[in-house]
Each structure stands twice: as C-alpha cells, then as structure tokens.
C-alpha cells in the first residue's frame, strides 16, 4: 500500500513539473444547432471560455457581468465563449434561457462534458483565459460578488 501511495505521489510531482500549453480543439454545436470550432471563435488577442450550466446559480450570477465585460473588451480583440455543459435534460431550455439573459457572446453545447474533461475542468463555473496561441494563461473557479473586477484585471494584464 505504501509503495502505491509513493508511486502516485511521484506521479503528482511529475505532473507539477510539466505545465504544457496546447490550443484547445473542439467542434461543438451552438444554440442554433450549427457546428462551430475553436478557430471560428477565438479572439485576436485573448479568448475567455466560460464553462457553465443552467442549473448552476453562481454561473447565472456571473453571466450579466461577463456580458458587460464582453461589451467592454470585444473591441480590443477579446472573444468570449460560453460552454454549456447541460445534459439532454436541459437542452431544450438552453436557447430561450440564453436569450432571456440577453447574452451577446457565443454559447456552445458540450452535452456530454467531453470538451470540459479534455480541458481538465471539474466544476462550474470555471473561466479559462487563453492567449492568442491558445495557451491557458489564467483559470478561475467559482463566482462571487466582486469577481468581475478580478476578471477585468486578468484580461487587462494579458492584453
């Protein structure tokens, strides 16, 4: 047992030494059922991915703030992409829900959370900020009042 724990500990350390950068690859449907891929949506300077779900309260609280930030930063080459991980249970609600919130940025469907798993994301909401090469430069989990300022600072820092 001790040997196995030791092996896993070594593994964890191995991981910590290797922070690699990879451009995300996805081909997902948007709320109008059209296929889109990362290269269609990525920003000239930065891309902010927002993993969220309709049943997640903090996600819903963050969306109006993200909408405001999108309006502020879109002219500067920052793209915002919402990735809904709602399963089949909530698929039909997604479009009217997004429209009622007045979301202006792209919303995509990750019905089986495959892209979420690929990005090693394990909770919602999670924001992932990518630079122009597609490398992850910032990750933020959860959303609390005042977090919009943190998001703004991180975007400005990496612009």
């Amino acid at each position, binding site marked *: 047992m001790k040997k196995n724990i030791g092996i896993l500990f070594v593994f964890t350390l191995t991981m910590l030494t290797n922070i690699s950068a990879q451009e995300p690859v996805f081909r997902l449907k948007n709320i109008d059922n059209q296929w889109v891929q990362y290269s269609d949506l990525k920003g000239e300077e930065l891309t902010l991915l927002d993993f969220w779900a309709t049943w997640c309260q903090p996600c819903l609280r963050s969306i109006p703030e993200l909408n405001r930030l999108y309006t502020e930063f879109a002219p500067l080459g920052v793209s915002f992409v919402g990735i809904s991980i709602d*399963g089949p249970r909530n698929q039909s609600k997604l479009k009217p829900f997004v429209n009622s919130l007045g979301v202006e940025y792209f919303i995509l469907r990750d019905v*089986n*959370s495959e892209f979420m798993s690929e990005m090693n994301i394990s909770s919602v909401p999670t924001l992932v900020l990518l630079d122009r090469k597609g490398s992850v430069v910032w990750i933020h989990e959860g959303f609390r009042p005042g977090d919009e300022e943190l998001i703004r600072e991180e975007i400005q820092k990496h612009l």
Partner: protein
Amino acid sequence: MAFPKFMLSFLLALLSISGMAQLSGSNLFEFQLGNLPDADPPDLSAHYDQLNLQYRYKSLKATVRYEQFLTQTPSSSYTRLTQYTLQYRKEGLDIKVGNFSEILGNGLLLRAYEIPGSVFEEQAYRVRYGFYRDLRGVSVKYNGDYGYVKAVRGRTLANSLPPTLDEDDRRPDLSEGIEAGLSRFGQTAGLVFMRNTNGPIKDSFYSLLLNGNIFSIFSYNFEFAHNIANSLPLFQLTEDARYGIYASLNYSYGNFGLSAEYKDYQDLLIGAGISDPPTLVKEHKYKLLNRSIHVPQIFNEKGSQLEAYYSFRNGSRLLLNYARAVNRIVNEFIFTEYFAELNFDAGAKHDFTVFADYSSDEIKFENNRYTGGFIWEYALERKHSTLLEVEYQSVERNLGAPVLFNNLVVIAGYTYSPNTSIAFTWELSSDPNLVPAGEQRHWIGLDFSQKLNANNTISLFAGQRRGGPACTSGVCYEVLDFEGIEIRFKTKF
C-alpha cells in the same frame, strides 16, 4: 498487471518532460478517515486517486486513466487502467478507439457520459471510483455543413459495478448504433438505428429526429423511438410496446423565454440501463430539492414540463417551473412540482436569490412537500465576500400512518477570492426514516478550500455529511453518509 501499465504512463510523462511530446492531464487524490454510518464495518481509512493523461500530436490524441482505491479491506482495493482512448480528429471527422462518451439522438436509446470530478460509491460495494458510464469500442463521426453521421460499437459500462469486478462483467451490454441527419435552412431531420445485446437478449430500436428553428423566436426538438421486433408493428403506442416520445417547443422574445416539453416513455429500460432520456424534472442546485427530486421511471412515465424565464432591466431574474409526471405501476402515481426563483441585487454589494417550491410525489408517498429558502451573498470589500444560505422543507408522508417532518440546511461561508474559501454547513432532519418519531438528527460539517496556484487546489472536509439522492448534470445517484475527515488534492497540468 498494474505495474507495467504504470510504467507506460510514466514513460509518457518522461517523454513530455524531455520535450518530445505534448502531455497534459489532471490528478485527483482523495483521502478519507472516518466512518460510513449504517455501513458494516463503519470505520473507514481509504484513499482514492484518479490520474488522467492526454498526449496530443497534431490530429492524434491518446488518453489514459488510472484509478486506484486503497482501503483496509483488500477485496475492495484496486489499481486499474480504467480508460484508454486513441482519437483522430480533423475538420469534421472524429474517430475514437477505446473508451468514449456518446449520445444517440436525445439519449432515449443510448447515452454514455462522464460527470467530471465526481467520485462514485455504492453502499453494496463500498468502493470509490470515477463517475462515468462510457463505451469501450469504436466510434466514427463526421459532421458536415449539411448533415452528420455517427456510428458506434462498444460495450457499455454498468456504472453501479465497481472496478474490483472483472471488466467483462462490468460491461454486460454490447451496443451498436448509427445515426445520420440532414440539415437545411435551420432544420435537421435524422434517423437512428440501434441494437443492444445483453447475454441472450437482443433489442433493436429505431428513432426519428427532428429539430430546428422557426423565425428565430421558436425552436423545437422531437424524437420518436420504437423497438423493432418481428412480432410487433414499427409504430405502436400501447402498454405492451416499447417506445419513447420526447417533444419540446421553445419560445424566446426579448428578455422572456419559455420552454414547453412533453415525454412518454414506455419500457425504455434497455439492457442494464444504457439509455438516459430527458427527465423533464427541474434540475435543482438546492440541497433539499436535489435530495427529494423525482427520479423518472423510464419503464413507464408520461409527463410535461413548462419553464419560463424573465430577465429584468436591472439584472434581476425570475424563473418559474412546472413539472408533472404520471407513472402507471398497478396504480397510477402522479408527481407534480411548482418552483419559483427570483434573483436580485440589493445595492452593489448584496446579491439575493429566493426560492419557493411545492411538490407532491405519490410514488414516494410524499404529499405536500413545501420548500423555501434564500441565498444571500455580501461583498464585504474587494476580494472578501460572505454567503448565507438557508433552506427549509416540510414534508407530509403517507406511507401507513401519515407523518409530518422537516428538513433544514444552513450554510455560512466566507471567500477570499480567488484562492480561499471556507463554509460551515448545518443540516437537521426529523425524517422518521432516519430518526425515531419526535427526535431530530443533526449533521455539522466544515469545508475549506485553498487554491495553491493556477493548477493545484487542496480541499478539506471535516464533520458529518448527509447522504441521499443527488443529481449532477442531469444524472442522479445516491450519496452515502460520511463522518470524518476528507482531504482532496486536485492537480491540472
């Protein structure tokens, strides 16, 4: 066998470090010390580890998942390579060999999924493992501008069976399916054919799909699935037939949105349970509502759901939901639920969410369930915020002599954003299924989470955690009671 598998991953890690390959992944380490009330033996000292490695080179990707569970019971301990996949993806083509998630249509016939970050445990086995129901086999998909086609063949995991069992036993179903659809002018029409083999039992189904948008304010989704049997017609909506109907019509105009859905599922329990049709029951984040959720009986359930949303100009949101389901199992059992939720800001620093819910679930013999509560978040100053959540529920149960009992949840939390959070949870229940009549039971727990850097987070739970049904991403499962200390260490790289 475990050591060579370990070596394979270790070599991948070394290759990555040396710059010869691109490697990414994650690791979840969890240690529990305490006990599982109502289990035998109740004492517990265990660790679970899940390591996910991804190697990518241009359009090729290889992934492996190791899982390990070590506890004082040798028969419950394991170290296994539980998933491995080789994937080729270019433009619209996506080919996978190994383990993968997939859905046919809306999931009426087949849905293989993963709940990222979740760890599952059945009381019967007391073995912890990743929460997913995957296929092991081959998947080929092509998505084009005017249509799509996908074909899958694989053995579906029965995820109630832990990795300590033989892999062949855990995958009793051989599922084969093909789905194709054509899209023009915002409308898509599709067809599914699926065959499932579980031992000597072979089931074949077809499914018709329609979805699209009308005038940009309406969208719809329709699926009709039916089994194919020599002795029965291809379209028969009687109680001795096997079919599923799912339909939704959605409307949005300005800040208003409306979704109306209908379901009729008759004997859709395929194999060991490979389907996952839309439930048409509100998916709740609130602990008490999540725990008392109606779990659809897909061998016989009809129902509908209506949900409306409105976003006010000041940013407030109103959500109204109505759900109804009817089960015919000798007698007729009816489930109804009315749910309302309002979120609003009270000044720049206060955020309130209030909710009220009434439901009646005859199949659980629970009538007149009233639930209400609120979440109040207060931004103290820059980066500092507090949270108070209170949920109260009153339930009338009519199994034998009618009983009335209450449930309460209070959560008080503090966050120093973005790295530190701490929350205190107190739960109380007078449910006679848990305590003698007239008594109450308390659960007190403390959660602490610290993000060490961009890729590493450590979490600590100490105290008592109430078990019961829970749903995440539309998938419902049973959470076991726990008392003790739990440490989690999550790493991304």
